[in-house]
């Protein structure tokens, strides 16, 4: 049960972020002024992939909530950071982001930090 929840959470997070990143890069630069935020909220309602992304976000949030009820937080937080590795790899493969040595090294150091913080 625990590992099923971890899998659901990680897959939902990865899917949500890939969809969000893909759609937002396509949408072009957005602002965070009140008008910009309203525009973003409307954008979610109008773009099917963003609706799906938010639905995945909800699935990931609730599976995390369930996970912390049956497993210690010190397991749940590092487990959720598994999505971090997968997302960075997919950002390169699917989103065609350029991940140089410095960014890759930084991401690995952050990952180690997240695992320590969770433990």
């Amino acid at each position, binding site marked *: 049960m625990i590992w099923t929840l971890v899998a659901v959470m990680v897959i939902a997070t990865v899917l949500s*972020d*890939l969809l*969000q*990143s893909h759609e*937002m*890069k*396509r*949408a*072009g*630069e*957005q*602002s*965070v002024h009140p008008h*910009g*935020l309203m525009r*973003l*909220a409307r*954008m*979610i309602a109008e773009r099917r992939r*963003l609706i799906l992304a*938010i639905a995945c*976000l909800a699935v990931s949030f609730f599976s995390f909530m369930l996970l912390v009820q049956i497993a210690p937080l010190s397991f749940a937080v590092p487990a959720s950071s598994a999505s*971090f590795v997968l*997302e*960075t790899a997919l*950002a*390169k493969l699917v*989103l*065609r*982001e*350029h*991940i*140089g040595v*410095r*960014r890759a*090294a*930084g*991401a*690995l*150091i*952050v*990952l*180690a*930090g*997240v*695992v*320590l*913080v*969770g*433990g």
Partner: protein
Amino acid sequence: MQTIAAESKRAASVAKVVVVLLLFIALKAVGNLSLAWGMKHLPAGPEGPLFYLKAMFDPFVAMGIIALILAVLVRLALLSLADLSYVLPVTAIGYVIAAYLGKTFLHETVSGRRWLGTALIFIGAALVGSTTHSTTGDQAQ
């Protein structure tokens, strides 16, 4: 001349990313803290769907939820400006702030191991932060 113009454009673009990034981190921190504070100070009652529904009307819980919804929108704006592989490690700074706020306001204990993790997150995020924030070609700059 052209290089100076390109350079100043790049600097403005970096400044915008930093502002949106800080706003996201702040909203997330305030949202989580408010939510955690509200949930910990709720009047005791039988657990169940009704309990959680009532909890949503607690001012701290409600403020936390609103801040977290705004954080989702601001993160979308951030993803319109920067790569996912940039946003993920850099926003991990949130873990550091959560640890600090938890210790200060909720009196949670933060172990040495946790502070070490916090330091690593800082170093890694700074390293990623020093890379070009958007590397996909199709973005209109």
